[in-house]
């Protein structure tokens, strides 16, 4: 039996309940061959701290699900800052998961190498598809809307 590949996922959202919803949907998306490990942050500041800690212990996050509007440090500010740091230039992959629908702001995000932009409200299927596209190296930086 092949060993599972561990995938560390950081969920960043100021709503603790929404973090639970996202985690639940992602757990439902876990398939054979992968072992998802989750951590959470309630704003960009805490997320940055978690990324640095994980990098220091050599267990970096592979994927970040990132909200935009959060107090203290927004998702956009977080992303802009970490992409300027050498070790976070490419990894982790970032999936924006936000209610922000402004096309200018979506484009601004894309410049920082967002793997996918999901507009809330979201379905379990949307999260599962995006996650698997990413794990299989097929994410194209597009935008996902719930119909």
């Amino acid at each position, binding site marked *: 039996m092949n060993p599972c590949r561990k995938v560390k996922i950081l969920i960043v959202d100021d709503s603790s309940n929404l973090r639970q919803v996202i985690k639940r949907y992602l757990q439902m998306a876990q398939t054979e061959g992968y072992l998802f490990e989750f951590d959470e942050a309630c704003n960009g500041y805490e997320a940055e701290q978690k990324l640095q800690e994980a990098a220091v212990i050599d267990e970096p996050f592979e994927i970040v699900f990132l909200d935009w*509007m959060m107090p203290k440090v927004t998702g956009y500010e977080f992303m802009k800052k970490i992409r300027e740091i050498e070790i976070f230039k490419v990894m982790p992959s970032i999936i924006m998961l936000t*209610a922000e*629908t402004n096309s*200018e702001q979506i484009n601004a995000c894309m410049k920082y190498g967002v793997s996918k932009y999901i507009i809330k*409200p979201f*379905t379990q299927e949307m999260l599962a598809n995006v996650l698997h596209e990413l794990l299989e190296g097929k994410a194209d930086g597009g935008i996902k809307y719930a119909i």
Partner: protein
Amino acid sequence: MPFDVINQNEYILVKLQGECLGGESPNVGELLSKMVEETKLKFVIFQATECSAIGSSFLRDMTIGYKAIKALNGQTRFVGAKPSVNQSVVQNGLDRIFVPKMSLKGALVDFGLVKQKDFDVNVINPFLNATIKVLKIQCFIESKPGKPFMKKSTDPLLLGDVSGIIPIVSESFNGTLAISLSESIFCHIVKNMLGEECTAINEQNVDLVGELANMILGQAKVELGQLGYGIQMTIPSCVWGKDHKIKHFGGGMCVVMPFETEVGTFYSEVMTNNTVQEQKKVG
């Protein structure tokens, strides 16, 4: 021609399209001057939403038109431009005369052509549609809108047990969106979203209603943008308890939208009121 100069009765609309590089004959400034002189209209909106690039030469042509507007003591607004186009205006030192605005509505408010305290009934549908969509996709609840009704601005009472409230900030109006749920509907939503039984609203689960308000505003923003309202995203808050009260910004018009679901009725309410100008007075 990468532009159209259109008489809109109360103002002149100059629609820019594609690459505006200048050198046309007649150029934008000449056509604009002619219309300003003929109509004596002193407000001009350059609609730059469809403009992909603007050159120094074209901007110089625009200043010819500006001279005619200035002669009437008029004003211009430069609406909906992409950041790169706005940047060209700034680099040419013209952003104080071709003043950037996110939306057409915002420009009309600046000109005093849209009354400040009118409640635009067109804003109701985007909120109705957004509420139905968010409840369906995120909460697995089908909701049917009832007949909206007006509420006195002095009555702060919401109609449910828990409310998610989010400020609406735009160039043409400010206000508040609130979604107000009974405890039973809220618990039903918590169960659908988290997969856990819920018997009461509490500090641990209440933030979900704020997230719903956030999603509704985000969805409504798309349709409101098409109507010319440039809405900015803000951070929601929550209140709960029987007969809880919220304070909407200011004291404008408030429309309440009831929704029927299989688990009861809930309400979404939008209050629009003070415009940007009025807010500036407050500080």
